[in-house]
C-alpha cells in the first residue's frame, strides 16, 4: 500500500460534528457517512490503492461547493475532489480524514454557442457528453481520452487529459477557454471566457493539470470544433515492436500529421480483438492504428503516402477501413483496451510516460527486457504519434508479491522515460502513483518552487494533499504565510 499522511486526530475526533455540518449545507442525500456506503468511494481507476474517506459530499451547485469548501477550510478538514473516479494515477484516492467532494451530480450542459464555437458545461459532464451534445450540429470536442465515455470534464481539466486524437488537436489545455473555480476559502472566481486569451497571467494554464490541488472546478468553457468531412483508419501490422516503433518515427519525420497514430503490441491486440471484433491482425507482433481525416481526396492522398512509408518496414498486412462501422470497431477496441486487458489478467498497472518519438524503438526494446527480468507480462498500448506510452503491467492483486514487482517495474519504466529525455506523465497526472518519482524528474529547488504555487492557493494544504509531491516535504508548507 502507498504511504498516506497520518490523519489529523482533531478531524477524526470531530467526525460527527463535521458530518452534521456538511448535512446542514447540502440537500437530503448529499452526504454519505456510514462505513458501508463509504467503502465504494475508497478507490478510483487505480484500485490497488484504497482508503475509506471521512465522508463524501455530493453538491449540486457551485454555491454548494463553495459552502462545503468554506466549511472544510474553517474546520481545517482536508478535501479530495472526485469526478467519475476513473483516474489511473489515484488522483481521487481519499484520505482517512478527508471529505471527498464528488462532482457527479453537476452534470448539466449550461450553454452551447455555435457562432463562437464554445460550450459551457458543469464538471460532471462526461467527455463524450460534450461531443454528443453538439454532434447534431456538426461539431465535436477534440480531446478524447480512452475513458471518454465515462471520465468527466472536471477531471480532464485537472489532469490535462489527452487522447488518441491529440496528435492533431492538442490536449485539454489547448481546447479550454474558461473556468469557474472555487478556492479552498470558498471564493468563486471566473477566469478566461468566450475568447481565446485572457488578460494577465495565464491562470488557465496554471490551473489546467493542477490535479485538484489549487481549486475545485465547477464550470468549464471548452472550445468546440467543426467535425471533419470524414475520417478513415488504417491498420498496419508488423513483425516486431521495434519495427513498428521505427515506422511511427518515419511517419512523423515525413511531415505527415495523422489525426491519430496508435500503437498496440501482441498481448494488447489479442485482448482488444476479443472485446471489439474489429479484425485486428492476430498474427502480428505489433500494430499501428493510423487515422487520417478530411475530404475523400485528402484521405486518399494521405493514406497512400502513409502506406508507402509503412511498406518500407516489411509489414505483415496493411488494411484500410472500408466503412464507418469498421472504423468504429477499430476504435472501440483501442478505447476499451485498458478494460479489455482485464480479460487476460486480473489486474494491471497502467503506466503513462512520455518520450521523444525518436526513442520509441529503443524504449520498447528495454521495456521488453524489463518484462523478462521482472517476470511480468506487459501489454503496450499507446499514443505513439506524440510519444505517450501506456504500458500495462499485468499482475495478480491477490498475490501481494506480484503487485510489488509490478510497482517496481512501473517505476523503472517511468525512470527510463525521464532518462531518454521524456516525462513521468503524459495525461494521467502524477496522482499518488508517480508522486515518489517526482524527484527523478525535478530537483529539490524545482519541487520547492512548485510547492510554493500550491501554498499560494491553499496555504494549509487541504486540497488533494498527499498527491503529486513526495510525501515528506509535501505537508510542510514551503512558504511562510503572509502576516
Amino acid at each position, binding site marked *: 500500500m502507498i504511504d498516506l499522511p497520518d490523519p489529523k486526530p482533531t478531524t477524526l475526533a470531530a467526525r460527527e460534528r463535521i458530518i452534521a455540518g456538511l448535512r446542514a449545507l447540502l440537500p437530503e*442525500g448529499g452526504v*454519505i457517512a*456510514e462505513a*458501508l*456506503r463509504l*467503502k*465504494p*468511494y475508497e*478507490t*478510483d*481507476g487505480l*484500485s*490497488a490503492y484504497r482508503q475509506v474517506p471521512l465522508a463524501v459530499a*455530493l453538491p449540486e451547485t457551485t454555491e454548494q461547493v463553495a459552502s462545503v469548501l468554506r466549511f472544510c477550510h474553517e474546520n481545517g478538514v482536508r478535501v479530495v475532489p472526485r469526478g*467519475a*473516479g*476513473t483516474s489511473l494515477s489515484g488522483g481521487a484516492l481519499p484520505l482517512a480524514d478527508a471529505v471527498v467532494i*464528488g462532482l*457527479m*451530480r*453537476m*452534470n448539466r450542459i449550461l450553454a452551447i454557442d455555435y457562432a463562437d464555437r464554445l460550450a459551457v458545461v458543469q464538471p*460532471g459532464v*462526461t467527455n*463524450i457528453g460534450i461531443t454528443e451534445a453538439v454532434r447534431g450540429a456538426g461539431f465535436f470536442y477534440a480531446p478524447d481520452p480512452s*475513458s471518454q*465515455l*465515462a*471520465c468527466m470534464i472536471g477531471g480532464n481539466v485537472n489532469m490535462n487529459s489527452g487522447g488518441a486524437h491529440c496528435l492533431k488537436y492538442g490536449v485539454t489545455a489547448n481546447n479550454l477557454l474558461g473556468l469557474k473555480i472555487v478556492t479552498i476559502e470558498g471564493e468563486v472566481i471566473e477566469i478566461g471566457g468566450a475568447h481565446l486569451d485572457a488578460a494577465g497571467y495565464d491562470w488557465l494554464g496554471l490551473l489546467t493539470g493542477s490535479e485538484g490541488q489549487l481549486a475545485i472546478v465547477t464550470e468549464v468553457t471548452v472550445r468546440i470544433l467543426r467535425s471533419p468531412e470524414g475520417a478513415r483508419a488504417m491498420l498496419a501490422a508488423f513483425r516486431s515492436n521495434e519495427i513498428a516503433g521505427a515506422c511511427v518515427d518515419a511517419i512523423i519525420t515525413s511531415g505527415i500529421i495523422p489525426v491519430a497514430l496508435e500503437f498496440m503490441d501482441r498481448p494488447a491486440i489479442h485482448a482488444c480483438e476479443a*472485446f471489439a471484433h474489429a479484425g485486428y491482425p492476430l498474427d502480428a507482433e505489433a500494430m499501428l492504428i493510423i487515422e487520417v481525416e478530411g475530404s475523400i481526396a485528402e484521405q486518399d492522398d494521405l493514406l497512400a503516402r502513409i502506406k508507402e512509408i509503412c511498406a518500407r518496414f516489411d509489414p505483415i498486412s496493411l488494411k484500410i477501413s472500408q466503412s464507418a462501422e469498421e472504423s468504429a470497431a477499430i476504435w472501440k477496441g483501442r478505447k*476499451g*483496451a*485498458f*478494460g*479489455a*486487458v*482485464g*480479460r487476460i489478467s*486480473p*489486474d*494491471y498497472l497502467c503506466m503513462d510516460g512520455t518520450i521523444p518519438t525518436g526513442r520509441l524503438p529503443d524504449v520498447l526494446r528495454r521495456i521488453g527486457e524489463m518484462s523478462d527480468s521482472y517476470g511480468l507480462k506487459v501489454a503496450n498500448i499507446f499514443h505513439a504519434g506524440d510519444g505517450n506510452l501506456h504500458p500495462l503491467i499485468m499482475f495478480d*492483486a*491477490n498475490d501481494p508479491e506480484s503487485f510489488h514487482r509490478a510497482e517496481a517495474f512501473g517505476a523503472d519504466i517511468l525512470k527510463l522515460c525521464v532518462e531518454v529525455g521524456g516525462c513521468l506523465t503524459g495525461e494521467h497526472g502524477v496522482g499518488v502513483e508517480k508522486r515518489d518519482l517526482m524527484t527523478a524528474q525535478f530537483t529539490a529547488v524545482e519541487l520547492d518552487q512548485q510547492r510554493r504555487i500550491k501554498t499560494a492557493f491553499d496555504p494549509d494544504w487541504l486540497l488533494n494533499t498527499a498527491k503529486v509531491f513526495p510525501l515528506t516535504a509535501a505537508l510542510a508548507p514551503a512558504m511562510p504565510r503572509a502576516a
Partner: protein
Amino acid sequence: MQTHFTPEQLRDPETAVANQILRTCVHCGFCTATCPTFVLLGDELDSPRGRIYLIKDMLESGRPASEAVVRHVDRCLSCLACMTTCPSGVHYMHLVDHARAHIEETYRRPWHDRALRALLARVLPHPQLFRAALVAARLARPFRFLLAGKSVLAKRLAAMLAMAPARLPAPSPIERPRAHPAAGPRRQRVALLAGCAQQVLDPEINAATIRLLTRLGVEVVVAKGAGCCGALTHHMGKHDDAMAAARANIAAWSREIEAGGLDAVIINASGCGTTVKDYGFMFRNEPEPWRTRAARISEIALDISEFLTRIGYRPTREPPGLTVAYHAACSLQHGQKITGEPKALLRAAGFTVVEPAEGHLCCGSAGTYNLMQPDIAARLRTRKLANIAATGADLIAAGNIGCLTQLAGDTLPVAHTVALLDWMAGGPEPAAVAKAAPRRDAKAS
C-alpha cells in the same frame, strides 16, 4: 480487482463464480457512464461499479445483507447496459442475481415491502390471478385519492393502480396448450413461450406471433405445463420459485423435443428471453438430466426477431408510410445483444425506422421495477418519451411487454414489433396503427 475470500468461502460454487466475476472487474468505471441510475442520481453507490463493490464487501464479509446494499441493489434496473459497455467482460447479471438471492436469504425487509413482493411473486406469473388483480385495480382506481401520500408504500400502490389498463383485453384461448399447424408444408417446428403477464396485458402479441409463424410454414406448439419463465421471481431473489418455474418449462419443452423435435423455443417478450437463454447457467449445478436439458433449451431459445431473420421474412402489403421509433428493450439489446435484427425486419416490412437518442438507457419498466421504484422509473419514462418524441415518429415499436406497458398512454401509440410484422405480411391491422394513422396523415397534408 483484488478479492478477499477465504478458501472455505470459495468452496461454495456460487461464491466461486462470484469471485471469478469480481476478479474480472478492473474498476475502470466505464460502466458508470451508461448506467441509468448513475446518470440520474450521480452517486457511485447507484452505479454498477459501486454495486459491485457493495456486493463484494457483503459476500467477502459473510455478513447478512445490510440496508445499504439492499437499497442500492434494489435500485438496479438489471437493464445490463453495463455489460454492453464493460470492456473486461464482467458478468454483472450473474453477480447481481447472486446478490439478490443472498439478500432474500439474509435480509428482513419492512413488512409492506415483503407483502408487496410476495403479492407480485404470487400474482404476476399466473395469468388468471393477474387478470383478477387488474380488474380489482381498475375498480380501485376511483379511490386512489386515498393513496395521496409520500410514503414508499403509497407511491408503489399508486404506481400499481396506474399500471392497470383502463380497458382489459378479453381473455384469448390462443395460449391453451396445443399445436398450431403450419400453413402449407411444414418447414420447422417450434415451441412458443406463451408467458404470463403478457398474455393478460396484450394477448394479440402471441396471436400475431402464431399467425405470422404458421403462415411462414412453422408449426407452433404451446406446450402443456409451460408457463412463466421465472424471471419475475428470479429478479426478486426468490431462487426456489424461479427454479421451479424454469424447471416446469424445461420439462414441458423437453417432452416436446422427445415427441416431435423442436427447431427452436421462441420468445416474444425479451425479458423472458434473457432468462430462458440463461437456464443453462441456472441449472449448471443441478443433477442430470436437468443440467443437460436446461443447456439444450438455452441453446435453442431464440427471440422472435432472431428466428424471423433466420427463416426469412417478406411483407405482402404495400409500405404503409409510417415512421416507427424503434425502442430497444434492454433485455434485447443488452441482455441478448440483439440490436440489428428488429430494425432490419421493420425496414424490410416497409416502415421507416428511426432511433431515439440515448437508446441505451432503460425506459424504467424493468420487470416489476416500475412498481417497486416508481420515482426512478417515472423519471426514466419521461426522459425516454422525450427522446422518442424528438424523432417525430408516428408510433413506437418494441419487443418487450414491459416496455410497451411503460411507454403506453402518452401521445404516441405503442405496438409489439411482431404485431407490425404480422400486419404487413397479411395479418390484421394492430390497434396502434389506427391511432398512428392520423399523425401520419397530418404530417403529409
